[in-house]
């Protein structure tokens, strides 16, 4: 009977993944996955609910309620933090299970290694994720990279210490401590804009920790589900790295963008006013909006929607061009736009829209910087050289809404800003858009 329930659960999980492939069917995928999860958890009790004390059930109910509460309250701009937090919980849970099983000490030797692996990865994910969350909240600046390098060099030596000192009793605790410190240091050196990669990577690790926990308790469904999470995280990690033309190793090494190189401009940019932008837009036939992290920071989504409506009412075509690493996690911009009811069919990926820029009348760059920097195509010396960018400089007119000329994460000047076809509207993303909308009423 248990086997049949688990079989149904596995099939539901696979179906859920299949349905997740299209935005229009994805909400059903969630229902399927929930059902699969409920069956899997139910089957683990093996129809014997009396073996568990009230503390066990109370923990489930209380944390379940807390989960609902958090998920209802979280704002869409905070999704990177929430996913980061959940990555940490997932890793912590698997690490804790592995620790308990290792303390039981009746495991076959092959499983002991898997358990140590699960414990190490789990604890690394746990501490690393909390540092990632703090970075996302801006509570932590770039950590001294030298310290991390020293730690990495001595890491193998630290691992041998317990063997040398014959500290068998505290071996597990020692491994946990080292894994926790490694997580903190590894993530602390990585800059905020590399967080899409870090979050996806930690997401993958939380799955790998769960998968190895499955080997410890010999549960196939746990192994399979863990493997799926691990695979999904790896896919996203590699996509994000490819979108920045950097290797995972290079990202995890950290320290990117901490040095400011060539930050000078040859001439002053042309600055513009909300009124001029409104006039320009009203003569356009096609407009592409490029959102970046600045849109999320300024909470400008609602203003974006309002401007979109204004333009569409005038029969102007509006599209959104979203770079894979825009924002602080994969798909961050898409969710913020979907929240204000912007049709996902108007959101385009880099590959789909890049050929269209040359025939676009006006591009509005909203709080994005490095992902539209033409140096990625032309300057071999530049740290972002080779990164696939949105070719907005090819459009007829570009309007950059930005508070100042300050460089983006890569710490380099963006020649787009002084291009002949570009104008700067110096404002916060939300305020800038609202002023443009107001000016429309006067045009």
């Amino acid at each position, binding site marked *: 009977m248990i086997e049949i329930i688990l079989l149904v659960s596995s099939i539901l999980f696979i179906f859920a993944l299949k349905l997740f492939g299209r935005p229009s069917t*994805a909400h059903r995928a969630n229902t399927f996955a929930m059902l699969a999860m409920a069956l899997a958890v139910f089957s683990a*009790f093996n129809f014997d609910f009396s073996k568990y004390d009230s503390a*066990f059930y109370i923990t489930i109910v209380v944390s379940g309620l807390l989960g609902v509460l958090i998920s209802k309250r979280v704002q869409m701009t905070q999704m990177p933090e929430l996913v980061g937090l959940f*990555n940490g*919980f997932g890793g912590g*849970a698997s690490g804790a299970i592995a620790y308990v099983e290792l303390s039981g000490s009746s495991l076959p030797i092959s499983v002991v290694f898997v358990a140590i692996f699960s414990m190490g990865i789990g604890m690394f994910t746990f501490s690393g994720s909390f540092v990632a969350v703090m970075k996302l909240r801006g509570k932590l600046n770039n950590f001294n990279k030298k310290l991390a390098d020293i730690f990495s060099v001595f890491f193998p030596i630290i691992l041998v210490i317990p063997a040398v000192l014959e500290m068998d009793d505290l071996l597990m605790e020692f491994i946990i401590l080292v894994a926790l410190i490694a997580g903190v240091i590894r993530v602390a050196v990585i800059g905020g804009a590399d967080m899409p990669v870090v979050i996806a990577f930690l997401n993958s690790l939380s799955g790998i920790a769960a998968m190895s926990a499955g080997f410890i308790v010999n549960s196939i*469904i746990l192994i399979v589900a863990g493997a799926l999470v691990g695979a999904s995280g790896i896919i996203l990690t590699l996509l994000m790295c490819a979108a920045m033309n950097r290797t995972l190793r290079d990202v995890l090494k950290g320290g990117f963008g901490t040095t400011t190189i060539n930050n000078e401009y040859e001439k002053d940019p042309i600055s513009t006013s909300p009124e001029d932008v409104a006039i320009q837009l009203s003569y356009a036939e096609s407009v592409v909006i490029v959102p970046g992290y600045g849109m999320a920071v300024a909470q400008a989504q609602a203003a974006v929607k309002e401007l979109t409506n204004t333009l569409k009412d005038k029969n102007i075509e509006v599209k959104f061009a979203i770079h894979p690493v825009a924002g602080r996690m994969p*798909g961050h911009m898409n*969710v913020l736009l979907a929240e204000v009811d912007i049709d*996902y069919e108007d959101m385009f990926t880099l590959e789909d829209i890049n050929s269209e820029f040359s025939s676009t009348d006006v591009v509005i760059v909203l709080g994005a910087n490095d992902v539209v920097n033409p140096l990625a195509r032309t300057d071999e010396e530049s740290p972002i050289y080779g990164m696939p960018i949105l070719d907005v400089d090819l459009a007829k007119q570009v309007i950059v809404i930005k508070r100042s000329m300050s460089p983006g994460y890569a710490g380099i000047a963006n020649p787009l800003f002084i291009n002949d076809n570009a104008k700067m509207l110096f404002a916060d993303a939300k305020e800038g858009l609202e002023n443009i909308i107001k000016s429309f009423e006067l045009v």
Partner: protein
Amino acid sequence: MEATFLLTLLITFLASFIGYELISKIPQTLHTPLMSGSNAISGITLIAAIIIYPEVGDSEILKIIILIAVAFATLNIVGGFSVTGRILEMFKKND
């Protein structure tokens, strides 16, 4: 014992392969809910906690550690699915 272990490995491999193929097809637009959904699924460690809880005997410390794992895993499952559902509702077509 050996045969069971190999079978488990085979299933793991096949599942990862299917997972990789299907997940690769998920569009960029859905990457955020994909991650929060993965969070929910990684909470499946709850199963391990359920399996080992009756086996730890009288050790209060180990029981507490398992309960911490239960709390984390349940938070992930419930919170993860709930927030993913909330996001996916936004992507539903407004007919």
